[in-house]
């Protein structure tokens, strides 16, 4: 009984955090772009005259979505038209189930693992559900019975499938190094030290993998410079025929994806919830200093570290989105199949070689 | 890691071929857009290297890779057959491909990868390896059949072969699954042991499993009633590919069948014999009767190859050593006759691709006496006229069947051979007796001519020394684990 309650609480906490983070992201996106373009940005939404640097904007956005007409194209397929945004939104949310946001929280005799599901196939779970997002795009494009949406859907299908290959293969090197697909164990392994001082983060062990994973992940989130399925200035994209809450789901899914990608990058390449040299008992610096900390403080510090990392990568993604121009379709495809893919295979090869040499 | 379990000698020949596929692709990539000659030479070199490796490692492999493959004499014997066919179609191919403007370097890599698959079919001692070999071979063949995308019949052949072939593969996989369900293993040694020990060999899932395995393999052999694809596919495919397809995959399918069914043949019992009996009789008769009335030489040869599958089934049915060795000898001679005949067919084709009329052969005996003589050798060999290799192949297989007590079936086979005389001889009659129809001269293509000559030589040579070749075949069969 208690276990069920704990799990429910964890699910509730994660969902709530994820949704509110994504909501804040809509504000971050507006604000950051405004700063980059020397504007003031979203600062008009107010409640009783309070504006709080535009933080009410997400609420205003949400209300607008609620009250807009929910239009379904009459010639399209109604069921699939409804299903598509759900298929775009749901998988992104579910992937968070296997991401650890802390080690173990001890309350008295109770040991609570700060992760919803510690799966043996954690990484594959993420890839499996990540693959489902493409259905949202393709079906949205198809069910709208509109040429623009169709073009967007076609582009999306080709792009997502192509970059999924790179995305999956870039993680193989990581799996080889850590010897597990379990995200929890991967994060634990990242708190070891290399050469006595450097934390064994993925970025240090697999720098090339990170450089390949990050662009591929951005391509999977369909944001500039990979926003060809949408490409608002040419074809408006796969959700041309969407409005109201259904459009809102697509819109929101994009921000959830930003958070998921940030969490994944932090977990896989930047030590997850770990702070360098912080262990269960407290800090132990490589030059000999130690600083003991109570358990609760360690847990909170780590949770905070995880959030800081997520925030950093979310910021970075927004920065990239507002800096780069869009690829042409052939450039995007060439980059994937002729640029990233050979490098990914090379990474696996070199990693294997080094591991083999290290073993002997 | 214990590397002794991975004895590379056992898979040396397919290994060379696999490396060769990559090499040929690389050479083709580097040799520019218009020049396919380097790729062809590289492919020929790879085949020769593989043949050298095959001879050097003859019967030295033994079982390896956790019982997945056996590099025994049986595998080596078949590898040599496959490599000979590959060499011939690679040597003869360019002229045909140039003529039809489909000379792409992929032709060579596909032939090589297909031969690699065959090598695993012959060497596999595990159903899984045999299945994967068969699929590798088939996939390359599906593409080769559609190698001329400009011609509709080629596309049709490719699609037909793909659809029916995948269906047959489905049967094979399902059969493997059922066998696994019954004995908990896909290992052929376990399979034989189970059948030998079982009171009723077809109890449980085994009956359905074995039946489905048989269907999967007989499809690739083009045995009646699973032969419907073969005339259309051989007819529609580019003719160099037909030459390859009618020879090597059939040999590979029989190799796989022998691997699977030779050892437990005794224990399979009466139902098995009845099914094979009917299949063999049907195949011979339907193949020969259908071949009688074909105006296209390609279709005629296709039906003739169906008939030959029927004769070959006698060897499997006999289940004794002579039967198995006879199949090996039969196939060794059959592939040369078929490759030769198909190659001559496209050499003399003067009406354009897609129209392979027997009338093309008119006057060949006077205009190109050597070519006509060689075609006659192939036709006589396919009939089974005594001094030629075809005769001894039939003799051994039929003798084995008589020894095993299938006298009536052999009578049917001999009657069928008599029927086949009609359509094989018709080609010769046209070559030497029909009046000139004012056809263009046949092109003189040295490389292709050399390939045909090599085929004819082999047909004669195997007929001159049948005993020693049979001894090698017997040793090969005996070397199976």
């Amino acid at each position, binding site marked *: 009984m208690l276990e069920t309650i704990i799990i429910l609480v964890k699910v509730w906490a994660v969902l709530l955090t994820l949704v509110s983070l994504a909501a804040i992201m809509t504000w971050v996106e507006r604000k950051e772009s405004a700063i980059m373009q020397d504007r003031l940005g979203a600062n008009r939404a107010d409640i009783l005259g309070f504006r709080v640097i535009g933080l009410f904007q997400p609420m205003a956005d949400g209300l607008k979505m609620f009250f807009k007409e929910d239009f379904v194209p009459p010639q399209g*397929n109604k069921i*699939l038209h409804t299903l598509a945004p759900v298929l775009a939104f749901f998988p992104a949310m579910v992937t968070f189930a296997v991401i650890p946001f802390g080690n173990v929280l001890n309350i008295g005799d109770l040991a609570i693992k700060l992760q919803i599901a510690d*799966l*043996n*196939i954690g990484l*594959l*779970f993420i*890839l*499996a559900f*990540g*693959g*489902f997002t*493409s*259905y949202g795009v*393709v*079906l949205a*494009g*198809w069910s709208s019975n509109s040429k623009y949406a*169709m073009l967007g*859907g*076609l582009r999306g*299908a*080709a792009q*997502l*499938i192509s970059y*999924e290959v790179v995305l*999956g293969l870039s993680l193989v090197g990581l799996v080889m190094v850590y010897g597990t*697909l379990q995200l929890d164990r991967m994060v634990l392994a990242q708190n070891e030290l290399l050469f006595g001082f450097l934390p064994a983060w993925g970025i240090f062990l697999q720098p090339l993998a990170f450089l390949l994973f990050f662009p591929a992940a951005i391509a999977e989130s369909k944001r500039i410079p990979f926003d060809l399925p949408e490409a608002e200035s040419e074809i408006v994209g796969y959700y041309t025929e969407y409005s109201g809450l259904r459009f809102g789901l697509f819109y929101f899914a994009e921000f959830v994806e930003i958070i998921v990608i940030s969490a994944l990058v932090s977990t896989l390449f930047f030590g997850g919830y770990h702070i360098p040299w912080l262990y269960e008992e407290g800090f132990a610096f490589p030059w000999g200093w130690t600083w003991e900390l109570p358990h609760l403080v360690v847990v909170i510090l780590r949770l905070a570290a995880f959030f800081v990392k997520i925030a950093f990568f979310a910021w970075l993604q927004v920065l990239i989105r507002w800096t780069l121009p869009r690829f042409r379709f052939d450039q995007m495809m060439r980059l994937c199949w002729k640029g990233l893919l050979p490098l990914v295979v090379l990474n696996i090869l070199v990693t294997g070689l080094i591991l083999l040499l290290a073993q002997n | 890691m214990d590397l002794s379990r*991975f004895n590379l000698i056992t898979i040396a020949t397919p290994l060379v071929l*696999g490396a060769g*596929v990559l090499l040929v692709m690389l050479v083709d990539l580097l040799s520019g857009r218009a020049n396919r000659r380097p790729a062809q030479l590289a492919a020929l070199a790879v085949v020769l290297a593989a043949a050298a490796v095959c001879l050097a490692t003859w019967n030295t492999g033994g079982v390896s*890779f*956790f019982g*997945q*493959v056996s590099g025994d004499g049986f595998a080596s014997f078949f590898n040599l057959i496959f490599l000979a066919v590959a060499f011939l179609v690679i040597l003869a191919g360019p002229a045909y491909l140039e003529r039809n*403007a489909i000379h*792409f370097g*992929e032709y060579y*890599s*596909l032939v090589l*990868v*297909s031969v690699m*698959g065959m090598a*695993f079919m012959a060497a596999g001692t595990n159903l*899984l*390896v045999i299945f*994967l*070999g068969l699929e*590798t071979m088939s*996939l*390359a063949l*599906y*593409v080769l059949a*559609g190698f001329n*995308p*400009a011609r509709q019949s080629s596309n049709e052949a490719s699609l037909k072969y793909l659809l029916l072939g995948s269906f047959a593969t489905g049967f094979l996989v399902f059969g493997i699954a*059922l066998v696994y369900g019954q004995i908990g293993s896909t290992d052929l040694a376990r399979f034989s042991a189970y059948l030998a020990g079982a009171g009723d060999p077809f109890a*449980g*899932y085994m009956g*359905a499993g074995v039946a489905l395995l048989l269907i999967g393999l007989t499809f690739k052999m083009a045995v009646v009633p699973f032969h419907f694809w073969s005339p259309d596919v051989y007819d529609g495919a580019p003719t160099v590919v037909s030459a390859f397809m009618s020879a090597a995959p059939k040999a590979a399918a029989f190799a796989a069948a022998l691997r699977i069914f030779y050892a437990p043949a005794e224990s399979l019992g009466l139902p098995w014999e009845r099914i094979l009996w009917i299949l063999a009789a049907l195949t011979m008769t339907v193949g020969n009767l259908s071949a009688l009335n074909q105006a296209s030489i390609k279709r005629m040869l296709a039906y003739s190859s169906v008939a030959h599958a029927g004769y070959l089934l006698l060897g499997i049915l006999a289940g004794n050593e002579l039967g198995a060795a006879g199949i090996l000898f039969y196939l060794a001679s059959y592939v040369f006759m078929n490759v030769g005949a198909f190659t001559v067919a496209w050499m003399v084709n003067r009406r354009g691709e897609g129209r392979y009329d027997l009338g093309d052969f008119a006057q060949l005996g006077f205009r190109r006496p050597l070519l006509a003589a060689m075609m006659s050798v192939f036709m006589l060999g396919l009939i089974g006229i005594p001094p030629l290799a075809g005769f001894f192949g039939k003799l051994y297989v039929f003798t084995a069947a008589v020894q095993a007590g299938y006298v009536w079936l052999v009578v049917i086979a001999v009657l069928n051979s008599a029927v086949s005389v009609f359509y094989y001889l018709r080609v010769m009659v046209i070559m030497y007796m029909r009046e000139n129809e004012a056809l263009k001269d046949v092109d003189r293509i040295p490389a292709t001519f050399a390939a045909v000559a090599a085929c004819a030589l082999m047909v004669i040579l195997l007929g001159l020394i049948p005993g020693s070749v049979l001894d090698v075949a017997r040793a090969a069969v005996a070397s199976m684990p």
Partner: protein
Amino acid sequence: MEAFFFLLLAVVSIFSGLMVILQKSPVASVLFLVLTLVCVAALFVMLSAPFIAAIQVIIYAGAIMVLFLFVLMLLNLQRFTEGAWSRFQITGVVVAAVLAVVTALLLRAVPLPADSGFLRETPGLGSVEAVGLSLFTEYLLPFEIASFLLLAGIIGAVILSRRRP
């Protein structure tokens, strides 16, 4: 609990499998096929084969079926026209019925134990580690042959999609 989930998945997968062939719209067929594959993946999880389940979802549901959809969208197939039952459909039904009877007879002939204990005897049977180990030891050779099978497929795709001169 286990039986409930099994029945649920079995019913859904059979239902969606039927819908694959009964649907008039090819896109709907593909989506039902995806549902079937996901259900089968879930059954794999229940058989403690999580790795196979994940691969099934990633490869089939995530990649191959999306490509199916992609091709269907490119072809822009209209709904199949309704008409009298064609000869193929009748043949199909007959063959399916025969297969069903044969399968039923097979299952009757071999009494399946309620619990063979197979999974308990070999713990970790379907885990990533176990699958990986057997793939790279006992089944190394088939694994490598499969890579050449795929190579043949790639060459084939290049050839068949080549622009006509």
